[in-house]
């Protein structure tokens, strides 16, 4: 008993001691506050009282340049040039009417009333309101020489975004614009304020937080004439980080040249890592238009352009895959053991499903074909029958394995996910059952199915690299202004459960497509290419879309490619021909 009693006693003692300890810490904390406020109010009081009178403090913003965007070899894709503007800090203006009328003398075209409104509307009285942008150097000098007259005006040297490559990478890099209310809510914690420029689309948007850097500012104590007496504190502006893209500018130019004036997409990547070396999406636009202040006419021209040049088709365009999808159907059939590679079907040029007749693209048919020949010559009749044998469920399942129907995760804003139809979806949307005809259509990549070009890139990458789904990406590394590495991408890949015998078969068949099949126009003297063509018939009179997805060299692939020509003008299969030309130029370069 006594022992136990002592233990309890000790524990209570413990509690008391700890409680007193907490009390002591809190007491010290409050004492600290009292000392600090005493320091501010008693010792520094007079000085702060003086500073609080009128506007003795001025805030001079120090703008910071946005981070650079470079290609993989350091070629400049986006940098900054300087531009001057005249602004006022609303808090500092003593006589706005006088100032504005003086400014009006210098800038006859200035709208005084509008400027007054602008100053009144300002939310933050310390933030300069820009009255006049893109001021010529001579006028800047004039204003600086008569500083006394314009003491409450400030000259801002603002960096202006510059894109030396013009429209070559427009819808990849994106453009800048003034932050809107919705974006402001999301970005306010990251130091973005109303009136700031932020990336609106593309890489500029995706990596805005790295590129924007931090604004600086200087607090200056001024005399009654507004002249600076001393700098109270200063924060240096922090330039944004530099982005190194995976893009190879030279390849990008080649691909662009070969596409000519056509609408469509070229994607070139490293199939092992997922680095995107080329991303051409046409038509494109020149982002310089936006940084220089786009005119209404120019904006209307771009936004109402039927080809939608602002969109990045490679990542946000959705198309039926056409015959390129046969790769998926063939894989499903082999993996699910629905067929042997040597099994044959007879193609008379058409196939009846129920009472509907489905045609092969080749009138008169291919005759007796096995799986390899069906891929090489892209026989539709073979795949109607194969698809019906495999079934919708397995086709969709393998499409998912290859990364279709979901975002690839590429580092680009608002990627589209494509679409894989299912019987239950059709029932829900159209109140109609899934017919065998739908399966036949799906087997040749037509009908409801939609894919994005970058999804097809991951698909062909998986064939080229031995069955790995690699995540495609555009930014290789980010370096801060002192040269420290801030971010380094490491490739992400995941094995698809497909046997190596199936993959070997696919490689052989895709090689045959270019050697002797529908992709023969890709053949060239420089490098052996493997690939698959696709032609998407569009209802109505529009010209078909034309796909080529492939890789080279065939035995040890180092580059993969996706070419999509929207509504091709030519009668021939132009996509493989473009791919062949691009690859022969790239490989003869090395």
């Amino acid at each position, binding site marked *: 008993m006594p022992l136990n009693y002592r233990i309890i006693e000790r524990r209570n003692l413990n509690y008391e001691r700890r409680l007193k300890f907490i009390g002591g810490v809190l007491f010290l904390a409050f004492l600290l506050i009292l000392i*600090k406020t005493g320091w*501010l109010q008693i010792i520094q009081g007079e000085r702060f009282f003086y500073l609080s009178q009128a506007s003795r403090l001025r805030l001079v913003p120090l703008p910071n340049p946005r981070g650079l965007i470079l290609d993989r070899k350091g070629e400049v894709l986006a940098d900054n040039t300087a531009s001057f503007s005249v602004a006022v800090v609303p808090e500092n203006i003593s006589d706005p009417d006088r100032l504005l009328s003086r400014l009006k003398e210098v800038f006859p075209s200035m709208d005084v009333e509008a400027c007054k409104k602008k100053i009144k509307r300002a939310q933050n009285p310390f933030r300069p309101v820009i009255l006049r942008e893109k001021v010529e150097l001579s006028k800047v000098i004039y204003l600086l020489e008569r500083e006394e007259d314009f003491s409450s005006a400030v000259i801002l040297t603002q960096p202006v975004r510059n894109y030396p490559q013009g429209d070559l990478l427009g819808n990849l890099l994106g453009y800048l614009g003034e932050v809107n209310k919705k974006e402001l809510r999301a970005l*306010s914690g990251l130091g973005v304020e109303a009136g700031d420029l932020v990336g609106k689309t593309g890489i500029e948007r995706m990596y805005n937080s790295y590129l924007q850097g931090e604004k600086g500012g200087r607090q200056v104590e001024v005399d009654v004439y507004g002249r600076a007496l001393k700098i109270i504190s200063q924060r240096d502006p922090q330039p944004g980080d530099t982005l190194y893209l995976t893009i190879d500018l030279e390849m990008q130019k080649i691909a662009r040249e070969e596409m000519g004036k056509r609408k469509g997409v070229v994607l070139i990547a490293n199939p092992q890592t997922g680095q995107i070396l080329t991303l051409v999406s046409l038509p494109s636009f020149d982002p310089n238009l936006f940084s220089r202040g786009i005119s209404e006419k120019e904006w209307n021209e771009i936004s109402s352009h039927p080809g939608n040049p602002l969109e990045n088709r490679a990542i946000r365009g959705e198309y039926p895959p056409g015959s390129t999808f046969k790769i998926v159907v063939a894989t499903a059939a082999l993996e699910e053991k629905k067929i042997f590679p040597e099994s044959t079907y007879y193609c008379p040029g058409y196939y009846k499903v129920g009472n509907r007749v489905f045609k092969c693209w080749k009138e008169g048919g291919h005759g007796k074909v096995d799986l390899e020949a069906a891929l090489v010559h892209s026989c539709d009749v073979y795949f109607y029958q194969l698809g019906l044998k495999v079934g919708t469920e397995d086709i969709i399942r393998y499409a998912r394995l290859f990364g279709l129907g979901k975002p690839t995760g590429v580092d680009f804003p608002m990627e589209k996910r494509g679409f894989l139809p299912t019987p239950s979806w059709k029932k829900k949307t159209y109140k109609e059952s899934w017919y065998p005809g739908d399966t036949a259509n799906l087997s040749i990549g037509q009908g409801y199915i939609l894919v994005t070009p970058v999804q097809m890139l991951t698909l062909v990458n998986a064939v080229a690299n031995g069955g790995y789904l690699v995540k495609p990406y555009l930014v290789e590394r980010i370096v801060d202004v002192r040269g420290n590495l801030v971010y380094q991408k490491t490739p992400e890949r995941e094995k698809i459960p497909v046997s190596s015998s199936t993959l070997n078969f696919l490689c052989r068949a895709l090689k045959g497509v270019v050697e002797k099949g529908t992709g023969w126009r890709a053949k060239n003297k420089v490098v052996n290419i493997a690939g698959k063509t696709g032609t998407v018939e569009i209802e109505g009179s529009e010209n078909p879309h034309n796909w080529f997805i492939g890789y080279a060299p065939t035995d040890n692939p180092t580059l993969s490619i996706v070419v999509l020509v929207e509504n091709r003008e030519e009668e021939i299969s132009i996509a493989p021909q473009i791919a062949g030309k691009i690859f022969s130029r790239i490989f003869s370069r090395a």
Partner: protein
Amino acid sequence: MRILKKEFDIYIIVPTICLCLWGLFHLYTISLEDSYYYFERQAIWLCFGIFFLFLFSFFPKEVWSRLSYLVYTATVFFLVLVIVKGSAIYGAKRWLDIGFFNFQPSELAKLSLILALSKILSGKERIGWKNILLSFILASLFFFLIAVQPDLGTALIVFSLWLILLFLSGISLKSFFVLIGTILASLPIFYLFLRPYQKLRILTYLNLHKDPLGAGWSSLQSKIAIGSGRIFGKGIGGAAHTKLKYLPQPLTDFIFSSIGEEWGFIGVSLLIVAYVMIILRGLSFALREGKSFSGLFAAGFVTLIAVQAFINMGMASGIIPVTGVPLPFVSYGGSSLLVFLSGTGILLSLSREEL
């Protein structure tokens, strides 16, 4: 009057009410003309708050220990609800719209965590790993639910409440330091898994006001406001520098700046005296009650008041970086006011002397 004195601890109730009324009056003096919107709302909340204070103080003291798990469960429910359908202000979901006002369950969470932990950790001979784990689960559930809102500032306060109550409950110093060591050691690991933009966002979660133009512009403005009050202050309504536009959140996070400006060093001292009175009274009650439910609750609650008051005043006077935490009883804000007054009501109920 003698009865009242016996029944309630006037050394708690008087400074509390004084702080509330001062805060309300101060809100009135710094309101811009024709705009008493905030003042009126705060007045209504104060009425409700004082009603709750007295209502709770008349509850029998045994009730609270029994109610604590129920309150905890209800708070979890509210916190989940806020994530599911809360309204987003400044990109973070922290508020439940219940007609008259936007309720902030994370404020309630502070109080209900103190209740629940006081229950778990009280009356134990020894605090073993089982109780530590149990209390950890209770605290970390709140931490998680509040952190995802995201409001890491409040989440960290919740977390520190857990550590303080654990410390008081008599857990051996060795286990306590092992615990802190483990947590500190796991932080960098946790941080490693974050992506760069998430790290950046953590700073946002912490509710640090970034002021892009200039080095600590709002901090400097706050110091100017306080300092310019000098010893006797600029007088009632004289907070010329603390016009609404000078500081972010002048009614909540930076209310101390304008108090310093209007009331001077004298006013600041009185404010601190009022807090110290409440805190000392609470701690001495906790000392008397020992390691019981009442004792732990009292200690936890006044520590919460002290921590928040210190963070708020320390931020305004430039001791610690700028974060958003309201000044207890004084800052504008219904949820905070109601929760602190209810907590005081509970404290009064526990400390009421039997006649």
